[in-house]
């Protein structure tokens, strides 16, 4: 009975929806969407980052880059890749963690067993913390 009642109500709603679509001119709702959720850190990802993203999050936290090149700001390099680079929605509140001089990213990437482009990771993380 509940199923029949539910389907009947959905069918009615469908008719109302179709009628409304005919009468109203559709407008883009993308800006509304992004504005609504920006305070929660839910934002569109840059297409270039999206393309590279699977490689940027491949860190296994073996720690070798820390031995090769030390820290970025107050953070160890493995933390940058394994912890900060996880698209935390609220990363803006942690911007002070990664502020400071760059270490030798080339040396760090050279020893990484999964070939992480650490300079690129640092750029993306810093961009996320700036929001």
């Amino acid at each position, binding site marked *: 009975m509940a199923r029949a009642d539910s389907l009947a109500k*959905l069918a009615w709603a469908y008719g109302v*929806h179709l009628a409304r679509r005919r009468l109203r001119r559709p407008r883009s709702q993308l800006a*509304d969407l992004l504005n609504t959720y920006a305070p929660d850190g839910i934002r569109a990802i840059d297409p270039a980052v*999206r393309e590279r993203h699977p490689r940027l*999050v491949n860190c*296994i936290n073996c720690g070798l880059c820390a031995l090769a090149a030390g820290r970025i700001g107050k953070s160890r390099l493995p933390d940058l890749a394994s912890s900060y680079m996880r698209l935390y929605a609220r990363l803006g*509140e942690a911007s002070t963690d990664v502020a400071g001089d760059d270490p030798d990213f080339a040396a760090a990437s050279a020893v990484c067993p999964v070939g992480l482009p650490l300079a690129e990771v640092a750029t993306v993380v810093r961009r996320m913390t700036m929001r």
Partner: protein
Amino acid sequence: MTAPSAYDVVVIGGGVTGAGVARDLSLRGLSVLLLEKGDWGAGTSGASSWMIHGGPRYLEYDWDTTRLSCIDAGHIVTIARNLVYRVVFIIPVLPHDRNNIERMETAMEVYDRFQPLKKAHPHRRLTGDEARQAEPGLSPDVIAAVTMEEWGVDPHRLVYANVEDAVAHGARALNHTRVTELIRDGGKVIGVRYRTPDGAFSEARARVVVNATGPWSPEVGAMAGVDIELRRAKGIHIVYPHRISNFSISAESIDGRDLLMVSHAGFTLLGTTDDDFYGDLDSVEVLDDEVDYLLQGFERVFPAIRSYRPVRTTTGVRPTLFKWRRYEDELSRRYEVIDHSPRGADGLITIAGGKLSMYRLMAEETSDAVCRKLGLQGESTTASRPLPGNESDPEPVAALAARCDVPALAVLKLQSRHGSNAEKVLDEGHTSRILCRCEPVTEAELVYAARHEQVRTLADAFRRVGVAAGPCAGAACILRASEVVGRELGWSATQRLDAAREFVRGAWLGRAPVLGHTGWAQEELTQGAMRGLMASDGAR
């Protein structure tokens, strides 16, 4: 055997419902004993999709379930502010999908009527190009999309917050304590016999025994000679140790089921399956086929999904109410409070069915049934009374980070678990050392968990504070975690190594089904490191 103790109520089952019942009854002034055979939330609750959601899927079957679920979700979001965060779905539509965009938007328009109940925003409709602007990883085949908002939650912390509050109001709560027998006097259940973690047996007498054991309910019912019929259904998730997208995404499986990729704070869950389950509830395995089923369905809308490295899988069994001749997906998520008096087991009440999003309401109605049985008038206060850590606003992240000399990210994560109690937790261990760097977790938090949160094993620590939950899967931190927990619990050096081995072995069972090329490489590295550090023949 120690002398029996006496309570108003014994609650069996430390999932979210059992913990909720214990909290509700304790707040009403009853004496409660809560028993859990494993760890808090380690069964069905922890294997969920980590969401407090209203269930738009149920609109096809039963609007009342959606309404009740949304109302209770609204209460949970209010009392557990620190544990919840918004999860926004893009629901893409492809040519030949079961539902076209007009049908999908109709469903969302109906769902919008319920969204204010849980403090969520209404849906948006996007063209295919707009959907790809919001999430560039979506397939070029996507022709349109709608959005839908739900709430994410850490179910392990939600369960523990209920346990903690129950204890704060006088309940006794024991994990790793298995009920071996229901004590009966003629046709009445008058208590339980249980085995504690050290192997000792004890008894507790109670005026009412609540069976809140989810899929294990039939086994507990059988101890009192009553039949409880459930339609148990297995579900799995693939876990990625990073947020793949800021938006969560839905997809359609090969058999037309809805799949979800849920973006949580720092990780992603991809699931879920829904299959009738007849096996051993204490040994539920993830099959390669189930993993392929999820990936196949998902790569239609998000082609890069196979490029990401999963870190493990989770699996659990839903305690769905019994119904013959229905597909698993069509089964109601309704619940039932069963008083077994008419079936010769007076004093035993079972709560069966339901879902995480309605746990508080299920607990309230179960507690109402207990009070009726005891002739008491007490009213539930759990809809408005904050859970621990939510009584006041937390300190600003930057200020707490600077004062305690820990990274701001660690404070963010700590507050997401402990809310306004974060400072108290940081003070506990007298150290600002970061123990698990992936999450990150401070040593102080683990010390606090071992001292005050009933952590008895490293798997308990994983659930309580998220240690070893990140991309390294414990390779970098589990031995240190074992040292810290062992120091607090008085483990010997051998016990500490054994605990780490046991954790790695358990984690392996969940990892094996999702190890791709890079996963195997990581596994070799981890196992090699573990072999060296543990001076053993490996952890597999």
